[in-house]
């Protein structure tokens, strides 16, 4: 039986279903304190070995955090109060939770931002062990599983080994969610908006994330059909690979720059720099993860990508927190976060945190061809204030004799006020159109809401007209204009974007080949 949904990351997957919404196993209270202690020891050991496995694939910054978690878990001082509580009759889960909550409260009470932020690490450590305590081996997803359920957490995506296939099928979800973005950049097939599935299912399923659908309990005919489509998709992808190493050009020979979007410094490890024209968007909010990264961590992350890119440009976007990307200790809770304190608004409101990022960027700039852009700019004053902070921090670094460089400063075009009246921004170094947010604001359709997904199209004439007008303004004033939203990597949207006058697109690494192949088909 086939159920239709919306493709969020193209591809095909065939494998066992894994129910994301199965109720978490309850902790089984043991018969004696000795067994409770054994259970806690085993769970801590399990958490440590999982972290150790994650370190294998993590880059320097993430690995540093994981090492910290391991060191904490291996320190008897952390678990001693829990073991004492078990001795006086508590079950292991309650004892561990109480011990860690007491420790967390100590961090939260600190008057130093940095130590307060570590409370998030402690909570993570607490939950890893609680999870290990209450799970039995059969709740682990089998290799190559198709994860299905109402939604999926980014951490679940990140901790899954996708090298053995598998995919994601969501009842709700959105093509613009962070997991969808991650899935596209890693080439993991994903379908969203399948609607509520009446009953839980098991067994094998077929995920068609090219057209958007999932087949439960496939018949032999459905299976054969699926395998044909799957191999045809693989063949087309293979063909697209021949475009990968070539500069992108349309049928008429118009060159189009194709850059990549990345979220983690380690993303560049799997990309050959010869296949792209630089990094059109390096997100920095993932770097912020569960806690605020210090200047040196940020500097190392930016420097790694700049050195990888060599002379090619790397456009780093200052932290775009808020909206659907909360960061504990930084973002605020709002009833309507997409219209609230997010992006540059939040950075300007929390300039203590913003200045750390600015210093890291100024210092990293000497290691390559850096450009910096600000997200969610609505009025020219925001750009002026952000640029002034760069100038202040630059002067401070200069007076301390620290090596640095002021990069060109540009803005994201994603708030309609900028797209409608770009003339207020004639002095910015460049424009980068964020089509995901521009579309959601123009169409008044939240990008994380499957119920309005049909409205959320960057190909709507209203959105395309704004893109064309920004491109025209840029040409007139000699200001470079690029686009870094998902539309840039969507073969169905690429012709319209090029017709709108864009000659610079930034796409997920996994979409490079298909995007270049699609560009080659455009007549302009």
């Amino acid at each position, binding site marked *: 039986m086939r159920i239709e949904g919306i493709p969020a990351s193209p591809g095909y997957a065939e494998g066992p279903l894994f129910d994301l919404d199965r109720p978490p196993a309850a902790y089984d209270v043991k018969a004696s304190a000795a067994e409770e202690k054994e259970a806690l020891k085993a769970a801590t050991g399990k958490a440590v070995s999982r972290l150790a496995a994650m370190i294998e694939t993590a880059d320097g910054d993430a690995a*540093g955090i994981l090492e910290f978690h391991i060191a904490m878990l291996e320190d008897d001082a952390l678990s001693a109060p829990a073991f004492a509580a078990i001795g006086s009759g508590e079950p292991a889960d309650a004892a561990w939770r109480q011990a860690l909550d007491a420790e967390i409260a100590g961090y939260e009470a600190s008057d130093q931002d940095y130590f307060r932020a*570590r409370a998030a690490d402690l909570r993570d450590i607490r939950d890893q062990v609680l999870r290990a305590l209450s799970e039995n081996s059969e709740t682990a997803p089998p290799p190559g599983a198709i994860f299905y359920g109402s939604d999926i957490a980014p951490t679940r995506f990140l901790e899954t080994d996708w090298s053995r296939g598998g995919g994601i099928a969501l009842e709700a979800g959105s093509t613009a969610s962070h997991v969808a973005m991650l899935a596209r950049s890693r080439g993991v097939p994903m379908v969203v908006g399948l609607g509520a599935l009446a009953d839980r299912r098991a067994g094998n399923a077929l995920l068609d994330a090219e057209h958007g659908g999932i087949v439960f309990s496939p018949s032999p005919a459905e299976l054969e059909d699926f395998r044909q489509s799957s191999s045809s998709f693989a063949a087309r992808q293979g063909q697209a690979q021949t475009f990968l190493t070539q500069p992108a050009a349309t049928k008429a020979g118009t060159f189009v720059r194709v850059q990549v979007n990345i979220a983690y410094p380690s993303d560049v490890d799997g990309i050959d720099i010869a296949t792209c024209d630089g990094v059109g968007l390096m997100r920095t909010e993932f770097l912020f993860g569960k806690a605020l990264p210090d*200047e040196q961590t940020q500097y190392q992350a930016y420097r790694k990508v700049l050195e990888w890119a060599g002379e090619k440009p790397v456009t780093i976007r200052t932290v775009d927190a808020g909206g659907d990307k909360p960061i504990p200790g930084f973002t605020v809770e709002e009833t309507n976060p997409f219209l609230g304190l997010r992006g540059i608004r939040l950075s300007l409101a929390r300039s203590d945190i913003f200045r750390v990022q600015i210093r890291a960027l100024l210092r990293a700039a000497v290691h390559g061809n850096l450009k910096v852009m600000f997200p969610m700019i609505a009025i020219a004053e925001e750009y002026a204030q952000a640029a002034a902070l760069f100038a202040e921090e630059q002067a401070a670094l200069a007076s301390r004799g620290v090596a640095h460089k002021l990069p060109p400063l540009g803005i994201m075009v994603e708030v309609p006020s900028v797209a409608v009246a770009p003339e207020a921004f004639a002095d910015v170094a460049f424009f980068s159109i964020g089509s995901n947010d521009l579309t959601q604001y123009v169409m008044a359709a939240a990008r994380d809401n499957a119920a309005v997904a049909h409205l959320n199209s960057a190909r709507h004439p209203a959105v395309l007209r704004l893109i064309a007008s920004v491109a025209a303004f840029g040409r007139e004033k000699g200001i470079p204009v690029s686009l870094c939203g998902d539309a840039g990597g969507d073969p169905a949207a690429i012709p319209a974007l090029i017709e709108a006058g864009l000659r610079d697109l930034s796409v997920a690494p996994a979409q490079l080949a298909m995007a270049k192949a699609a560009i080659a088909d455009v007549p302009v």
Partner: protein
Amino acid sequence: MSASAEATVLITHEVGLHARPSVKFTKLAKSFAAEVEVAVAANGPWFDAKSIVKVMAAKAPKGTVLHIRARGDGAEQAVGALVDLVQRDFDEDTDHARSA
């Protein structure tokens, strides 16, 4: 006769004796047989330098004068090595072109 040593060192690392530095700090402390303790004030409280939980609990930010003391085999070497690690900014700041 039991050896003992004590020293102070200024923490210059940007965010202090934080997560990654304290991983390095406690690892190094554990490589010595001597009992090693740290404090953020001369009169304590003293924290076990081999326990990351305790070292983090000392909450020593940049600019803290860290007190380190050790007792037992290799006490002198332990204090010397830990002071050195703090002075090297925990080897995290390898390319920071900061002039005096």
